[in-house]
């Protein structure tokens, strides 16, 4: 639907914008073996993210799923270069359209942020500045990254607010964040993130703080944006329903590592990792027969084993045995599942006919 965007909204000559074109089909964001350690004097370093690899192609939505403490948000902060430099150690590689972001000079990275890649946070109230009008917060991004003048930036800000579905945008530009409702604030935040037409959008639980009807509106908006502009999106969420509706591919994290990776249909149709399987079984569904007790995963996400000793999920897993105490459990393809469906599990849940590649033990 390109007619919805008047040409005036796309400043043609923009320094830094769209400098490195990525060919169709190739990944825009390429994360390889990302590791994040938090260090504190007098304490053992905490490994929050451990060897995470993922990629997002233009026009594609990659879901990153996990519970609290699984490292999904830290992964996104590491990609954006927003982790505190003093207390965290980031290893591995993060490439945006071929350019390595880790170790990049802070100034260059700051120029990319907001322009080439942008982020939408969970809580719009704490990520908008409460003492600055919405309009200023939108034009600020435009004026920083492009050389539009004040009036043009204002017009474009109005246009952005209208596009994200904020009624009466001209008046809203003068409003402060507290004058907007939760859904409107989240829209304003999305408008800011989209101001420079970033090629990568990271959305960290963008709808968790919203009501379902507002959530549906915001998700629809994100879906359209990705479809229309070919933005690559990394969607971080714990809501499997949101994943099922919006994502093309899904990466499931547990305790800092990727435990399963698959296309959306594969993941929901044939979850291979026991954690994914348990997660899907424990969610009450609107379309399932009522009255059956739910099948929860026992324990809590804090009952962990370090990955260096065994599968971190083993203490909560009904299928755990000695084979799980393998420090080298690899994220691998499984027989009977299509290529691209990877799981890190000694006893994966597999279709009846298929057998696991290595472990012969019945799961």
């Amino acid at each position: 639907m390109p007619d919805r965007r008047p040409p005036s909204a796309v400043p043609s000559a923009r320094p830094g914008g769209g400098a490195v074109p990525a060919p169709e089909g190739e990944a825009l964001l390429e994360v390889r073996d990302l590791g994040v350690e938090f260090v504190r004097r007098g304490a053992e370093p905490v490994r929050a993210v451990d060897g995470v690899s993922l990629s997002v192609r233009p026009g594609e939505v990659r879901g990153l799923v996990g519970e609290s403490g699984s490292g999904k948000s830290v992964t996104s902060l590491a990609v954006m270069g927003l982790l505190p430099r003093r207390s965290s150690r980031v290893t591995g590689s993060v490439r945006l359209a071929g350019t390595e972001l880790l170790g990049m000079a802070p100034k260059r990275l700051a120029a990319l942020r907001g322009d080439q890649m942008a982020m939408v946070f969970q809580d719009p109230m704490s990520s908008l500045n409460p003492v600055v009008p919405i309009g200023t917060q939108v034009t600020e991004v435009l004026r920083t990254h492009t050389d539009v003048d004040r009036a043009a930036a204002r017009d474009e800000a109005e246009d952005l607010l209208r596009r994200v579905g904020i009624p009466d945008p001209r008046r809203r530009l003068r409003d402060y964040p507290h004058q907007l409702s939760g859904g409107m604030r989240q829209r304003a935040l999305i408008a800011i993130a989209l101001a420079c037409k970033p090629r990568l959008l990271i959305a960290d639980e963008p709808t968790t703080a919203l009501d379902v009807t507002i959530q549906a509106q915001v998700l629809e908006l994100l879906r359209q944006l990705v479809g229309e502009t070919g933005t690559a999106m990394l969607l971080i969420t714990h809501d499997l329903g949101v994943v099922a509706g919006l994502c093309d591919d899904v990466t499931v994290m547990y305790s800092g590592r990727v435990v399963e990776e698959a296309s959306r249909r594969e993941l929901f149709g044939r979850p291979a990792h026991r954690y994914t399987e348990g997660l899907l079984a424990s969610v009450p569904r609107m379309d399932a027969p009522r009255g059956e007790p739910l099948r929860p995963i026992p324990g809590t996400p804090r009952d962990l084993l370090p990955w260096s000793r065994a599968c971190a999920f083993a203490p909560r897993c009904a299928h755990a045995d000695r084979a799980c105490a393998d420090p080298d459990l690899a994220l691998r393809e499984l027989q009977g599942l299509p290529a691209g469906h990877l799981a890190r599990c000694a006893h994966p849940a597999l279709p009846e006919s298929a057998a696991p590649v290595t472990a012969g033990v019945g799961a």
Partner: protein
Amino acid sequence: MSAREAAGTASTRPAEGTDDDVLLRVRGLQVHFPIKKGLLLDRTVGHVRAVDGVDLDLRRGQTYGLVGESGCGKSTLGRAVLRLEEPTAGSVELDGQDVLALGRGELRSLRRRMQMVFQDPMSSLDPRQSVESILTEPLRAHGVPGGPAAWRERVLELLEVVGLPASAAARYPHEFSGGQRQRIGIARAVALSPDLVVADEPVSALDVSVQAQVVNLLEELQDRLGLTYLVIAHDLAVVRHISDVVGVMYLGVVVEQAPSDELYANPLHPYTLSLMSAIPVPDPAVEDSRERILLTGDLPSPANPPSGCRFHTRCPFRQATRCHDEVPLPRELAPDHVVACHWAEEVRDGRVRASSASHDPTAVVADERA
């Protein structure tokens, strides 16, 4: 559900008439909060009509699920039932006893029979009290006979009931995970063997994999202790799972109420329809094929609710007549299925269709452009 129903009837006191097994009866309940202005004069310039005329009946041993978006008044309703919030008008009867007429002392003794589970277990448990002290407090406050020795025994029993080890008694809330803390909150609520438990968003602060544990615990306790629940939640899937009867609230009023299965199989009110179509289902096949009714805009201010049907400003099925100037009265369209909508039959039979122009925000944008 047969097991639960059986358990429910087992715990029911002998019922003489049909009305006798109604534990909680709410009629015309209103809670209005004054909006004050001015530093010295403290003038009241208006009222936030948080709850504006709600009727509901809750049978013994059953679960009533109250759903709605934030700001619809569902939590205020739950609190008003327990008189944690002073209602402006209406009546609340627990077992035939008028809760609103009670004095402080009588109310206090009635609180034994009605308890609450809060949403955030971290802020509803005192961080400086040990679990034993938290669980002993209601026993002491209500003078449960037996003294400290009997109380201690009761605490251990409660911990066992909610699935925590006896060693938990000596520990403090921060030592527990979210799910375990919610178990402590539930143990405190059932410590005095109440009849009615109001649970306000009991699982929404918990991790997905832990939510199911707490939902199962609530159901188990209902079977074991014959509890009656008023569950307030925004998650329709959770509410559907645990409730026998579900009420949908919008802007201070219940717009639809029906037995759980009936409501989810045949939603009639346009708001319920859009609410259900907005909920993401963890199944790609369903997600791809379903038709969504997207609502425009936000919840109007409860200080100044829309005239006529309160939902008409956002309703995709809005008609030119009646909706904006006539308040729809609750009508029983199927057994126990009550709807407050002028056009419910027409919507159900497909004679009135959702107008796409009014519910697609981008379409509006496109029109403005053209």
